[in-house]
Structure formats: structure tokens, C-alpha cells
């Protein structure tokens, strides 16, 4: 060693070995793995004595064994790591299979396992899409050794949860992973441009939390990233490919969990809507004569399913000039008291627009509306007294025209989602059915009342007719029933006909009573028919005597002629 060029050239390490450690001879044998050198086996003697070829061969054999040992341990650790990953995955899957309406426990299991398995100190799951303005911190997990640091970190988390992080791919690692969308690996956060520029979150993570290496993996859904998993290490030790693959697996599971929960909630919502619809239909079928209960059922369900504190049903009057709040739920009493409940059709707020233009009208914030700014009383009172912010009005459409509207509002700026609006539209259709039902029911009721009156009058006439016909020829009875004034005393030109059977008294004296009755009945039936045929008026009968008035109450132009013609018919008949 002392004779080597390096020693003579004054190489510091060589000088240490020779001058301080006292080494005479040195042998270095490379550890070769697939042609690459991965290390060195070195032997030293204090005396100057070369190593023999047998020594070298032996050390080469030991070097090969050392490589084998290193490779064995690497494989063993890889298998152990994979087993640990699989155990963690199966734990997450178990959590996922148990809970369908809440992602939180799955997120917790994912973030905790990702952090532990990757040997990271801090891990977080953030949600947000490329087009969003902000990200939401959904879960965080850390293993901070220092309680003071943990306390500072808790304050940081509280702040992150209260103030959503801006989706800025330039400043934020998570936003970069979401927007690109690809895995972001940073060997040392402290060496980044973000740190140099003094980005607050980066400075905080490096300077306060002492974190250096960072890995951020996007949660890839079918339409791009929907969030990211973020891991930090306290040392500068980049995450391995195995770590990345593991976190990618966790990210895929998080996406599945989110999708599962979304589908579960969607089904729950659909069931809830179906229940509401069938409830309203049930009320409609039970409430044929009054819209009130139907309106109440509709408004109650609309309010609950659309997360709105207020729901109101507005109707347009028959002249199509005025809108009235017909029914409402959830308004503050002072608001209801302070307002007139009637608006002109040309009102500039959402309900007016929905009815005039037959379309859904949503004001995301009525304080931003033209009506509010221009000082429209209704809008100003709604905003300032009632606290209305987002308002949606859905028209009640009948034959292509609006007959009213359903209105919902929220006391914060939170626009109604399209499926909520679709639900209100189906409620609006039901309200129209209810209104139409009741209108038809009332029309039918009126018709029935009228018919009943008419039938009673007719029944009365029929009864009187029946009575009159017992005493009068039917033509006369018809005349009298139709025009009862004829029965009052009056003057008229009439002719009177007298008729009896010649020698009837003598016949009666000799005939049996039954024979007399039979003759009289036959005689009166035949004469009665003739009298009716000739349109004669009242006749009076006593025994075989008949007196007939011609010309009253049935008017005649020639009563005497009619009487003569009747007399001739009677004689001919006899």
C-alpha cells in the first residue's frame, strides 16, 4: 500500500489506511451481480505480503456467497412486503364490503395502510377534479413522534379542513397529480422550486413538519382524476416502484369505494323519490275534491328530497293576470306576515319567469338577480327578511300553458341539482293532475246538482200529469201541465155538446145491473176515444149523459164546427 501511486500522490484515504491504520497489503474483490458490481469485499494485512491466487479464489467464492445472501434477503423482503400489501388490501376490501353508504372508513383504512406500508410519516387523501377551484381534505394519517409537532399539525389540518385548498397544479403537489393526471415523485421537497418560491404548504411540510421525500398518486376515475393520495417521508429517500404500485392499488380501491357509495346513494335517492311519488299519487286518489292535501304532500316531499327549507305552490288566476301563493311549507312566519301573497304575472322574480316562459327558472343567488338589484319589493323582502339565496321555480304545465309553479329555496347559495329539478318537475305534473282532478270533480258535482233539480221538476210534472189524466183527456192534461195559467178563470169562445142514449132509462128498467154497467163502460170508452181524437176539452159524464166543452182549454178556431163533427162521429159510432 505504501508503495502505491495513490499513497505517493497523497490520497487522504490511502494515507489513513497506511499511516494511521497501519495496513501493509490490501485485497479488493468485487461483489458481482449479473455483470454489475454491487459492492466490494476487502481484506487487509498489517505486513506487506501479497495474497495468493488461492486466497483470491476463496475470497471470490465468498464474494459470490455474499451476493447470493444479499439477493436472498432482497427476495425474502419482497415476498414479505407483498404479503403485507395483500393483507392490507384485504383489510381495505373487508371495510369496503361492510360499508356502502360512507366512504370515510375506507379512506381511513387506505390512508393508514398506505402510510404504514410505504414507511411514510404523513399520508393524506384529497378529493377534487381538474376543473374544480378547490380540493377537499378527506382523510389524513400521520405518525409524528413529537407531541408538540402533532399539536401544530392538528392545527394545520383544522385549517385545511376549514379552508379548502386551491386546485393549483403549480403550487400544490396534489393538484399537479390530479390535473396532469400522473404520479408525482419528489425526492426532496426542500430542493424544489415550490420550496424556493416559499409556497406556504411546502414550507410548512418541510420546515415545520420536517418532511422531505414526497409521493402523490392520482385517484383515476373513468373521466380523469377525482382526487389524490399524498405520502411524505422525513428523510430524503425516494419512494420505490413497489411503493408506487402499492399506492396505485390503494388509489384504485378508493375510486371503487367512492363509486360504490355514489351508486348506493343514487339507489337510496331513487327509492326515496319513488316512495314520495307513490305517496303523492295515493293522496291524489284519496283527495278527489280538494287539492289541499295533495299540495301539502307534494311540498313536504319536495322539501325533504331537495334539501330545501321552503317549498311553495303558486297558482295563476283564471284571468292569467295574478299569481297567488296557494300553499307553502317552511317559510318564517314574519316573512309570511310581512308579504302580500299575490304577485302580478309580470313579476321579475323566478316564479313569474317560470310561469310566463313555461320553463324552470333558477336564481343561484337572488342577491345577484336583476330584480333584487333594481329594488323589487318581493325580491328584497325574500332576501333580507326570509334569507332566501338560491331559488328555483318549476312551472305547472297544462296543455302547453303554465297554470302555476312550485318554488323551492335555500338560505345559502347552493344551486339545485338537475335530478332534484327533474323530481320537482314530476311533482309539478302531479300537482296539475290533482288540480285537474278537483276541477273535473267540481264540474261533475255542479252538473249533478243541476241534473238533480231538473229531474225533480220533471218528476213533479209527471206526477201532476198522472193525476190530471184521471179526470181529463190526455191532450187537455198535457196542455194544462205545460201552461198552468190556463186553469185560471178566463173568457173564451166555446161550443158545448150534450150526448145521451135514447131509451136508456127504459133499457135500464128491464136489463140486469151487470148488463147495464157493461153497456155503459163500452159506450163511455168509445165516446171518450172520440172526444180525445177531436181535441175536445173537459167533458162531464153522468149515467149515459155526456157534456163536452169545445175550444177550451185546447184552443179552436171553430168550436161549433168541431162540436158538430164530434156529434156526427159519435152517432156514426153508435
Amino acid at each position, binding site marked *: 500500500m505504501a508503495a502505491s501511486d495513490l499513497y505517493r500522490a497523497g490520497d487522504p*484515504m490511502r494515507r489513513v489506511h497506511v499511516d494511521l491504520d497501519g495496513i501493509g497489503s490490501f485485497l479488493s474483490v468485487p461483489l458481482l451481480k449479473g455483470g454489475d458490481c454491487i*459492492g466490494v*469485499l*476487502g*481484506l*487487509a494485512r498489517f505486513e506487506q505480503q501479497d495474497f495468493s491466487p488461492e486466497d483470491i479464489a*476463496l475470497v471470490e467464492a465468498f464474494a459470490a*456467497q455474499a451476493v447470493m*445472501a444479499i439477493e436472498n434477503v432482497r427476495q425474502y423482503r419482497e415476498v414479505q412486503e407483498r404479503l403485507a400489501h395483500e393483507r392490507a388490501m384485504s383489510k381495505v376490501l373487508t371495510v369496503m364490503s361492510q360499508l356502502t353508504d360512507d366512504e370515510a372508513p375506507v379512506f381511513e383504512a387506505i390512508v393508514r395502510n398506505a402510510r404504514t406500508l410505504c414507511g411514510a410519516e404523513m399520508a393524506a387523501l384529497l378529493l377534487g377534479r381538474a376543473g374544480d377551484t378547490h380540493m377537499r381534505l378527506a382523510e389524513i394519517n400521520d405518525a409524528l413522534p413529537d407531541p408538540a409537532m402533532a399539536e401544530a399539525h392538528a392545527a394545520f389540518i383544522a385549517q385545511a379542513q376549514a379552508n379548502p385548498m386551491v386546485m393549483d397544479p403549480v403550487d400544490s403537489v396534489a393538484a399537479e397529480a390530479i390535473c396532469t393526471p400522473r404520479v408525482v415523485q419528489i425526492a426532496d421537497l426542500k430542493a424544489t422550486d415550490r420550496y424556493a418560491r416559499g409556497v406556504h404548504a411546502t414550507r410548512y411540510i418541510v420546515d415545520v413538519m420536517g418532511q422531505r421525500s414526497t409521493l402523490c398518486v392520482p385517484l383515476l376515475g373513468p373521466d380523469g382524476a377525482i382526487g389524490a393520495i399524498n405520502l411524505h417521508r422525513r428523510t430524503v429517500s425516494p419512494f420505490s416502484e413497489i411503493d408506487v404500485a402499492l399506492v396505485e392499488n390503494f388509489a384504485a380501491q378508493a375510486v371503487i369505494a367512492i363509486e360504490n357509495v355514489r351508486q348506493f346513494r343514487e339507489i337510496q335517492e331513487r327509492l326515496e323519490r319513488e316512495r314520495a311519488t307513490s305517496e303523492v299519487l295515493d293522496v291524489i286518489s284519496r283527495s278527489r275534491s280538494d287539492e289541499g292535501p295533495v299540495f301539502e304532500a307534494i311540498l313536504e316531499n319536495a322539501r325533504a328530497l331537495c334539501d330545501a327549507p321552503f317549498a311553495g305552490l303558486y297558482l295563476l288566476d283564471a284571468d292569467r293576470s295574478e299569481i297567488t301563493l296557494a300553499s307553502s311549507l317552511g317559510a318564517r312566519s314574519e316573512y309570511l306576515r310581512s308579504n302580500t301573497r299575490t304577485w302580478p304575472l309580470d313579476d321579475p322574480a323566478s316564479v313569474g319567469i317560470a310561469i310566463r316562459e313555461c320553463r324552470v327558472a333558477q336564481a343561484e343567488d337572488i342577491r345577484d338577480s336583476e330584480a333584487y338589484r333594481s329594488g323589487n319589493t318581493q325580491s328584497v323582502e325574500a332576501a333580507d327578511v326570509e334569507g332566501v339565496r338560491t331559488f328555483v321555480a318549476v312551472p305547472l304545465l297544462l296543455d302547453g300553458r303554465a297554470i302555476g309553479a312550485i318554488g323551492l329555496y335555500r338560505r345559502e347559495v347552493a344551486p339545485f341539482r338537475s335530478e332534484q329539478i327533474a323530481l320537482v318537475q314530476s311533482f309539478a305534473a302531479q300537482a296539475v293532475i290533482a288540480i285537474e282532478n278537483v276541477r273535473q270533480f267540481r264540474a261533475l258535482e255542479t252538473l249533478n246538482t243541476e241534473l238533480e233539480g231538473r229531474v225533480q221538476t220533471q218528476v213533479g210534472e209527471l206526477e201532476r200529469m198522472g193525476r190530471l189524466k184521471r179526470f181529463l183527456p190526455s191532450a187537455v192534461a198535457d196542455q194544462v201541465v205545460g201552461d198552468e195559467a190556463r186553469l185560471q178563470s178566463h173568457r173564451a169562445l166555446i161550443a158545448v155538446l150534450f150526448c145521451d142514449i135514447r131509451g136508456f132509462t127504459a133499457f135500464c128498467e128491464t136489463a140486469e145491473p151487470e148488463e147495464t154497467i157493461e153497456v155503459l163502460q163500452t159506450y163511455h170508452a168509445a165516446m171518450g176515444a172520440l172526444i180525445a181524437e177531436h181535441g175536445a176539452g173537459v167533458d162531464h159524464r153522468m149515467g149515459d149523459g155526456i157534456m163536452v166543452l169545445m175550444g177550451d182549454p185546447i184552443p179552436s178556431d171553430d168550436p161549433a164546427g168541431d162540436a158538430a163533427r164530434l156529434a156526427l162521429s159519435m152517432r156514426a159510432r153508435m
Partner: protein
Amino acid sequence: MTAPQPQDATAAALRDVLETMTASRADEAPVFAVILKYASRLCAAPFCGLSLLNAAGTELAYSASHVAELPHSKVGDMRWAVDGPST
């Protein structure tokens, strides 16, 4: 030059290393210790050390030694660049 090592001693050493490797699946350190012990003994070299290249392949780190711990070259302390001049 040292005398040739008896074949049975060499074979026994290599066998011992293999047995240690089997027994210590999760850790290279005991295997390294056995290798260095035999290398030192069989090659009559009081100092025997093992250095490994880092993951980036840029630096050697002195990771195991046997017998005479050199007073000025300690495990863990010593690392040197691969492209540097020293051995």
C-alpha cells in the same frame, strides 16, 4: 504468499456460510459476519471488510467488518465515491 488452504477447511467454511444463509432469510448481516470471519481466518488477513454500493450506484459504504476494527476506518463512517481514486 500464504500456504494453500486445506480443501476441507475451505469446504467447511463455504458450507457454514450456506447454512447461515438458510437460517437467516431476512437479514444479510449474520451471513456477512460468517463470510468475513472465514475470509479473515483462511486468508490470514486480520482485517476484512465489506462495502456496498448505494441504490444510485454512486457511492460505496463500508457496511461490515471483522476481527480488527481499524481505529481510523469504522463501519458506517466511511463512504467514498465510486469514481474517486481510493480503494
